[in-house]
C-alpha cells in the first residue's frame, strides 16, 4: 500500500509537470511565440547543450544547481512542517534571518576558515530556527494560527535584515561590505570545472540536509511523533505524545532548514549581504517545491532541481524571445495541477483500469 501510494504521488507530480508544459505550449502558440525556443532554453539550462549552435557550456549546469540549492532547503523547511500538520509560510522570513546571521558573522568575526565557515553556517541555522520557534510557540501556547504569524514574521525579517545590514561597517544602501573569504562557501575548483559558474560547496550541506531530513522523519522516535501529530493530533495525545512541544520542535527544525537556505545565498551565491526591498520568493517557492515533491526527501530534491532549472532559465528565455512570465506560468500551473491531485488520480485510475482487470486482481 505504502509503495503504491508513493508511486501514485510520483505519477501525479509527473502528470502535473507534463500537463503544465502542455498548457504553456498552448499559451505560447496562442500568443504567437515559438514554443520550441522555450524547450531550447530549458535543455540548455540543465544540460549545458545548445541545440541551435551545437556547443556545450557546463556553466549552465553549475548555475542551475546553484540556484536549486536554497530552493531545496526551503522545500525541506516547508515539507518538514507539513509532516507535523503545520503550514510554514514563514520559510521566506526564516531564510532572510539565516542569511542575515551568516552575513553578520562573516563580516564581523574573522577567524580561521575551519571555525569561521561552520560558525557562519550554524548562526544561519540558529537564526532561522529562532524565527521558526516564535510562531511554533505562539501556536502551541495560545493556539494562534501559524499561517498568520509566519506571514507577519516574514515582514519583520525583511525590514529588520535591511536595517541591520545597513548598520554593518562598510555597507551602503544596496549591500554590505564583502564577506571575509574564510566564511565563504566559494570553491575555485567547482568554478573551474563549470566554466566559472557560481556553484559552491553548499551542495554538500544540501545533501547532508536531505539525509538528515529523511533520517529524522522515517527512522527516529522523534519523527514518528511528528508524523503522528501531523496525521492525527488527537490520537497522538492519546498515545501520550506532547503535541504542543512537538509543534514547537517541528517549527524550530523547519526554521533551521530555511536558515541554511539563507546561508546558501549570502555565503555561496553573492558573497555579501543584500539590502532587500522586497521578497525574493526563495522561501515561498519552497512551498511549491515541497508540494510537488510530496514532502519526501527525494521528492523535494527532484522538484527543487526542476524549479531551479525554471528559475535559472529565465534570462536565457528572454534572450530567445520568450518572456519570463511564461516560466512563472509554468511554475504556477505545476502547483495548480498538483493541487488537483484527486482529479488526476481519478484520471489515472480510468487509464489503468483496463490493465488491472487483465491482471485479474487489484
Amino acid at each position: 500500500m505504502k509503495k503504491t501510494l508513493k508511486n501514485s504521488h510520483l505519477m501525479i507530480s509527473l502528470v502535473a509537470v507534463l500537463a503544465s508544459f502542455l498548457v504553456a505550449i498552448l499559451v505560447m502558440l496562442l500568443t504567437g511565440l515559438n514554443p520550441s525556443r522555450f524547450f531550447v532554453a530549458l535543455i540548455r539550462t540543465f544540460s549545458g547543450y545548445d541545440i541551435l549552435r551545437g556547443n556545450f557550456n557546463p556553466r549552465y549546469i553549475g548555475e542551475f544547481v546553484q540556484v536549486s540549492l536554497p530552493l531545496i532547503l526551503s522545500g525541506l523547511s516547508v515539507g518538514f512542517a507539513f509532516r507535523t500538520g503545520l503550514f510554514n509560510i514563514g520559510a521566506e522570513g526564516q531564510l532572510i534571518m539565516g542569511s542575515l546571521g551568516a552575513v553578520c558573522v562573516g563580516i564581523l568575526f574573522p577567524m580561521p576558515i575551519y571555525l569561521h565557515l561552520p560558525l557562519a553556517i550554524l548562526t544561519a541555522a540558529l537564526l532561522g530556527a529562532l524565527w521558526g520557534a516564535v510562531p511554533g510557540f505562539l501556536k502551541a501556547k495560545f493556539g494562534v494560527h501559524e499561517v498568520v504569524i509566519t506571514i507577519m514574521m516574514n515582514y519583520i525579517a525583511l525590514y529588520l535584515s535591511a536595517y541591520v545590514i545597513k548598520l554593518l561597517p562598510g555597507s551602503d544602501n544596496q549591500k554590505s561590505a564583502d564577506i571575509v573569504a574564510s566564511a565563504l562557501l566559494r570553491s575555485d575548483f567547482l568554478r573551474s570545472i563549470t566554466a566559472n559558474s557560481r556553484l559552491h560547496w553548499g551542495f554538500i550541506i544540501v545533501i547532508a540536509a536531505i539525509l538528515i531530513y529523511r533520517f529524522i522523519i522515517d527512522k527516529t522516535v522523534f519523527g514518528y511523533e511528528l508524523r503522528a501529530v501531523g496525521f492525527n493530533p488527537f490520537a497522538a495525545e492519546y498515545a501520550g505524545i506532547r503535541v504542543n512541544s512537538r509543534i514547537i520542535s517541528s517549527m524550530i527544525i523547519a526554521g533551521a532548514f530555511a536558515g541554511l537556505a539563507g546561508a546558501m545565498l549570502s555565503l555561496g551565491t553573492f558573497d555579501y549581504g543584500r539590502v532587500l526591498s522586497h521578497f525574493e520568493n526563495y522561501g515561498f517557492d519552497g512551498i511549491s517545491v515541497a508540494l510537488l515533491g510530496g514532502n519526501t526527501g527525494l521528492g523535494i530534491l527532484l522538484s527543487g532541481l526542476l524549479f531551479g532549472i525554471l528559475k535559472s532559465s529565465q534570462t536565457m528565455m528572454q534572450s530567445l524571445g520568450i518572456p519570463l512570465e511564461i516560466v512563472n506560468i509554468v511554475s504556477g500551473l505545476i502547483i495548480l495541477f498538483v493541487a488537483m491531485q484527486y482529479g488526476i488520480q481519478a484520471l489515472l485510475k480510468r487509464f489503468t483500469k483496463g490493465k488491472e482487470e487483465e491482471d485479474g486482481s487489484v
Partner: protein
Amino acid sequence: MEPIVELRGITKRFPGIIANDNIDLTLKKGEVLALLGENGAGKSTLMSVLFGFYRPEAGEIFVRGQKVDISNPNVAYDLGIGMVHQHFQLVQNFTITENIILGNEPHKGMIVDMASARKRVSELSEMYNLNVDPDAKIENISVGMQQRVEILKVLYRDAEIIILDEPTAVLTPQEIEELMGILRNFVKEGKSVILITHKLKEIMQIADRVSVLRQGKMVGTLEVAKTNEEELAELMVGRKVSFTTEKEPAKPGEVVLEVEDLWVKDQRELDAVRGLSLSICEGEILGLAGVDGNGQRELVEALTGLRHINKGVIRLFGKDYTKITAKERTDLGIGHIPEDRQKRGLILDFTLFENMLLERYDEEPYSQKGILQFPAIRSKAQELVDSFDVRSGEGIDTLVRTMSGGNQQKAIVGREVDLEPRLMVASQPTRGLDVGAIEYIHSRLIELRDQGTAILLVSFELDEIFNLSDRIAVIHNGRIVGMRYPEETDEMELGLLMSGSKEIADEKNTEE
C-alpha cells in the same frame, strides 16, 4: 409482492479485498428487508453502490423493473431511493426544518419559502408519528430526535425505498421501540425498507426477510418467520456463536481505582462530570450504563489524562494520580480502549504495524537511543495481529484507513490488552461491531478480568452491560445515580435511572 429493487451480480473491489462478490439482492415492495453481516462483510459497500456512492465493477441494478445506472446520490433520490446514514449529517445551529430542506430548498423567486417547507415537515412528522418540532435547533434535541430528522430528510425527498444504516446503534431501549413503530408505519404507507444491522433481536422483531452477507458473498436469504437467532448468527459468522459470555463469578480483590467528587468540564466549558464518585476492584468489571452525553466521555478522558480535572481526586492503588500525564498513566498500567477509534485510537494514515506500538514505540526494544527498531516493531505487530485475529488486505503493511471497523477495533483491543494493564478503561469497546467480533472482544475482556485487571466498561448497549458487568453504575447528568448488581435489576429499571426520571422521583420523595 413484486420486486421494487433488484441487484444482479454486483461486484465491487477495493485494494486487496473483494468487498462485494457477485451479489444478488431483491427488495419487494412494502417489506422490511434486513441486511445482516459482520463488519467488513460488505453491507455498507453494497448499499453505497445502490445509493450511488460507489460504482460497481460488474453487475446490474433494476429499479421498478427498469435497468438503471446510479452514478451519484442525486440519481438515487430521483429514483426514490433515500438513505439514513449511521453518522448524522446535520448543521448543529440550524432548525430541524432548515436541516431538512438543505440542498433542496423550496423557493419563491430568490426567497426560500420557509412557510411551506415548515408546513410540509409538520405534515410528514404527523403522518409517520415522528413527533418533531420543526423549529427546534439540532443542538438542543436528543440523539434519537436527530435520527428522526435524518429520516425526515429522506421522506421530504419522497423516497419510496429507504435504506437505514445501523439505525439503532445510538438509541436507548425506549427509542429503539419507537423507531420500530416508525418503520411499521412506513410499510403501512407502502414504502420499502432495507435495514442494515447486525442486531439479531431487531431483525426478528421487525424484518420480513433477511439477506445474510459473509466476507463479501451472499450466503442466503431467509424468511424471518422461518428462522431464529441462532441460525442467523451461524450463517453470518460461519460457525456456532454463543450469545452470553461464559464467565465465572468475579473475585474482587483490593481497590484499584477510586474516584472522589470529580468535576470535569466539556468542550463548551460546561460542567459535564458533576461530583462523581466510584471505585473499582481488582478482577471486577464495573459497567457504566447511561444515555450518550451524560458525562461518560469526559469521565473517561479525565481518567486517562486527556482532559483537565477541575476538582476532585483520582487514586490508583491508593496513590493520588489526579495530576499526572497520559503517558505516565499508561506506564502506571492504565489501558484505554477509546470510544472513537478513528479519532483517538488509531492514526488512519499510518500502517497497521505503526499503529500497534502507538504507546510503546519509545521503549526498548522498539527503539534504541531514539532510533526506531523496525524489525522489533514489525515482529511485535505481527505477533499481536496474529493472536488477536486482525484481518487486513496487506498484513501489517496495510494502511489502517482501508481496514474494516471491526478489524480496526480488534487491533486497538489487542494493543491495549497486551499492555497488561491493571486498570482498563473500555469505552464502547464493541460499538458498531458484529456478533463474532463482539463475542471475541467480550471474552478477551473477561480473560483480562480473570487475570486481576480492574475494568471500567462504558457502554450505551444494555445487553453488553448486563452480559459483562459484575456491578452496574448508572450515570445521569454527570453523576452516579444508581449502583446495582446485574442479577438484582432489569432493563426497565436501568432505563428509568438512565433517563433521570427515577432520580427525580426519588428527589421529590425526599423533598416531601
